[in-house]
């Protein structure tokens, strides 16, 4: 397929813009609710307020970002739906996912310091999450490797799928082996949140807000990908011209083929 992007690089579509705006507002609201409105937790005191950020961030990273990445990678590898569109989506969502994954670790560590008394411990959930970050950093590293768009896309799609294997591990880590880390309180089997009402709603709001932010970021990254491909296509045009010009005897090499000083030594 040609590198010429099928999507025109119009400024962000309206929905993306709105996602961005609403996401920003929502996040602000979450923070406000989390800090001032909802009650402090009996055991954890004000630390509990991280609960409105940490889990949603984690969910966005794991299920939305990496989920989308894996899905679009699959769609790319499947001949019927093969299109660089999916590759770009995958790339965009992995990049965003890596950011959220890092944030998960950060917020988690912030939370861990006071609650567990340590920044870090070799708890299965924590380790597998750190692992996830490394995996997708590997994906990004692989993307840097120059190759035909199709080739790189295939290569990265595979990497994304393999890396995604770690996501279920992260989720079930708390169940498979005993961990310091909180078990699934919200995302448990029978989806029955075992937490205080207003907290649940704030948590939900936080999740929705961050989801919108995610959508916005992916849209932006996607557009950048498209623009990049455009410049590549333009560059190709130019280098083709140059290449053809080699055919004419007036190419750069000829003049320098033999300096006068050398003639008839």
């Amino acid at each position, binding site marked *: 397929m040609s590198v010429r992007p099928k999507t025109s690089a119009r400024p962000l579509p309206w929905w993306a813009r709105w996602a961005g705006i609403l996401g920003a507002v929502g996040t602000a609201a979450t923070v406000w609710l989390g800090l001032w409105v909802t009650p402090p937790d009996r055991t954890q005191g004000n630390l509990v307020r991280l609960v409105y950020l940490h889990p949603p961030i984690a969910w966005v990273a794991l299920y939305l970002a990496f989920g989308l990445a894996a899905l679009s990678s699959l769609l790319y590898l499947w001949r019927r739906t093969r299109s660089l569109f999916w590759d770009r989506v995958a790339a965009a969502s992995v990049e965003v996912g890596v950011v959220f994954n890092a944030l998960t670790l950060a917020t988690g560590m912030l939370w861990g310091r006071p609650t567990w008394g340590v920044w870090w411990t070799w708890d299965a959930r924590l380790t597998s999450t750190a*692992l996830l970050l490394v*995996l997708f950093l590997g994906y990004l590293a692989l993307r840097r490797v120059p190759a035909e768009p199709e*080739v790189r896309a295939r290569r990265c799609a595979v*990497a994304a799928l393999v890396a995604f*294997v*770690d996501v279920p591990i992260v989720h079930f880590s708390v169940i*498979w082996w005993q961990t310091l880390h909180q078990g699934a309180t919200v995302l448990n089997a029978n989806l029955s949140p075992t937490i205080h009402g207003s907290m649940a709603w704030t948590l939900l709001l936080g999740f929705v807000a961050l989801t919108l932010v995610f959508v916005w970021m992916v849209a932006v990254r996607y557009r950048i990908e498209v623009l990049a491909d455009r410049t590549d296509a333009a560059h190709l045009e130019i280098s083709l011209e140059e290449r053809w010009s080699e055919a004419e005897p007036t190419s750069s090499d000829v003049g320098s083929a033999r300096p006068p000083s050398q003639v008839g030594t």
Partner: protein
Amino acid sequence: MWRDALLVAGKDLRIELRSRVALWQVLPVAVLFLVLYAFALGPVRSTLASAAPGLFWLAVLFSTVLATQRSFAIESGEGTRDGLRASGIDPAGVFLGKAAAVAAELAVLQVVLWVAMSLLFGVHVHTVWLAVVASVLATIGLAAAGTLYGALSAGLRVRETLLPLLVLPVLAPVLLAASRAWAGALSGPLSDGVSWLRVLGPFAAAYVVVGIVLYGPLLEAG
């Protein structure tokens, strides 16, 4: 597919036997690693015993990296990799073949390591069957994942060093599971050990399947 797999595995193993890399280089390195770990952790024997399973599997892991590296170094002679692509072998066959060859080497290696470990750290396996099952599953997983990622980086010029970056994180789960399982087999509560097989099994299966399906695209990747 299976015919091709046998063909490739045979070829790789024959080359290994000729160049003796697996036998003379990877093996001693693995043993050395055990020794070095012992070094690094200092002579406290109790620590060693408790760390033994982990160290064993780290050694195996490192050997996997070397083995897969070698397995693709074979293909990266002047025109050889193209040769493999041009040969028309079913990619799935290539994958299974190379993975099988690597697995065979790893199997031999583990037996030796096992002996070395019991000598060095004075630890002994109580529930043998558990250790064996764990090893088999882990080996399959390691070989498959290693080969899969080897292909990813085989085309790239930074092969030697890119490979570990790609392999290690993916193999981490198997490392964890295998060492815990072995811990169980060595001394710890059996039930734990067994429960870890539940991680190893799916991991191995997953990678074999993923490999068979996706190896074609990867070989193109050159």
